[in-house]
């Protein structure tokens, strides 16, 4: 059972929901921070990191001894990552999408592939009992985000184990990479015009992927009621409301969980899990 926590708009409370849900569950859980540009879950769950794995992508290296300057590599590359200039071949690894086209097409076997590091996956456990943890960390200046997310997702639990994914904001390729092949998506929004606008985009994204989804309204009370009307019209179940509470906001600022400050929320998050299960395929749900 893989549950993605997503939002469209950033800063609506994805990480808050993921962290509190993970810490409230009675069952073992694997938590994956797939917001690899800005992973924050570790700041709330404080896992003991015990392993790291580099995320690498192959990029071309040209053997100029073998190269006949036939330009086939340059012609096949749609990302302008190889250029034949005069009597030499220049590569631009930061533009390379690692499709392997140049490597395959070179008639002289003059293209070999070397490794470029895109980022890192860190893995660990606890201190929440029975929690496994993995997060991706994109290297500064790198742009190839989806391969790092896909690497983090290789650490998912096997069914019927529970995997929680903290997804990145937005609606484009990083979000798709995070949400794809998950059983259910929990969308977190805030009741403001920005929150609603971006929620609608997120719902379109989830619908495109055909994944069952429900809604959490965070900071309830700060804005207007438009999001409730939208959820009703669009037939999206509201799974939980977290009212705006300055004490919760202050606790968040320090990296504390809601359930630490408001213990009654632990039960609410356990109920949330049961409700999420009902949205997804119940067969996949851990009891």
């Amino acid at each position, binding site marked *: 059972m893989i549950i993605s926590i997503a939002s469209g708009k950033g800063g609506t409370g994805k990480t808050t929901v993921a962290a509190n849900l993970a810490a409230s569950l009675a069952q073992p859980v694997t938590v994956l921070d797939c917001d690899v540009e800005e992973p924050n879950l570790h700041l709330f769950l404080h896992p003991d990191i015990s392993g790291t794995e580099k995320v690498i992508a192959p990029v071309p290296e040209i053997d100029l001894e073998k190269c006949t300057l036939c330009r086939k590599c340059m012609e096949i590359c749609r990302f302008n990552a190889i250029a034949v200039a005069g009597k030499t071949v220049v590569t631009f690894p930061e533009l390379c999408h690692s499709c392997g086209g140049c490597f*395959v097409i070179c008639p002289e076997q003059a293209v070999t592939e070397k490794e470029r590091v895109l980022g890192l996956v860190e893995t660990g456990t606890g201190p929440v009992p029975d929690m496994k943890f993995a997060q991706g960390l994109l290297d500064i200046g790198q742009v190839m*985000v989806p391969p790092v997310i896909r690497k983090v997702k290789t650490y998912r639990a096997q069914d019927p184990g529970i995997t929680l994914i903290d997804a990145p904001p937005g609606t484009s390729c990083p979000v798709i990479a995070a949400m794809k092949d998950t059983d259910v998506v929990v969308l977190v929004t805030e009741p*403001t015009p920005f929150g609603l606008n971006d929620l609608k985009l997120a719902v379109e994204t989830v619908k495109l*992927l055909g994944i069952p989804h429900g809604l959490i309204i965070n900071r309830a009370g700060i804005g207007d009621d438009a999001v409730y009307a939208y959820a009703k019209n669009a037939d999206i179940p509201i799974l939980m409301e977290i009212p705006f509470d300055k004490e919760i906001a202050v606790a968040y600022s320090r990296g504390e969980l809601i359930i630490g400050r408001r213990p009654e929320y632990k039960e609410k998050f356990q109920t949330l899990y049961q409700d999420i299960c009902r949205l997804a395929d119940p067969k996949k749900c851990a009891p």
Partner: protein
Amino acid sequence: MKELVILSGKGGTGKTSLTAAFANLAPSLMLCDADVDAADLHLIMAPDIRQTHDFVGGNEAIIDPERCTACGTCRELCRFDAVGEKDGGFFVDPLNCEGCGVCVDLCPENAIDFPQKTCGQWFVADTRFGPMVHARLGIAEENSGRLVTLVREQARKRAREAHIDLILTDGPPGIGCPVIASMGQASAILIVTEPTVSGIHDMKRVADLAAHFRIPAMVCINKYDLNINQTEEIETIAREKNIGMAGKIPFDPVFTRAMIQVQTVLEYDENSPASRAVKEIWQAVTAHPAMKLERLM
């Protein structure tokens, strides 16, 4: 011409609300929304759209079942797991297709078409503060970086034509492809952060990115009074990283109220604590050496 790009790393720290308020303070400017993925600036600017253009962002491989002999070459070659098999035939999953065209070029039967695809739209609009260029990337599309680059190029071109000296760009969250596309050649970036563990963590990463590309950076702290200790930590980090402190905004519900009224905070309540803080920040930002307009007014 100067361009200020508003970034944050972490989403939801107030980039767009602050951009809108700055638009209120600049005597003349071009607005640019570089968050093409989940754009919100138009919700305050209520732009009057003058032009709509398609964004052709790449190509998509499509296997023609008539010509396909199901040899499986494309599937072997594809490194993105985009080629699937169904009922003895092959198909390309557009969600996985990277648009590299390797299968297209190497299919022995020439059975794969590679049409260009429209990945979104971009707009040229008028607002009550000046012209604006913004965009909408299609759902689940790639190439957000290219659309950001396009929107910024258009903003620059149109600003030059209209003799506008200042471009204000609302950036996307994160530090990946669209963020890098939004900061190249910027005069300066302003990082909007908040005094939370996440805000600080993410601010550091976007500040390192700016340093990586040698773009001058400033920082301002939204909701600074939520946690004074963390605010002090941000100030210390800013000093260490040689980032100018542009100012601090108190926690103020006026931002949400203004948003609901389709107004900037200054339009909603010019004398609110947030509005007063925003004015001071704008003065600090425009006084930064990287932002000073050389032209004598």
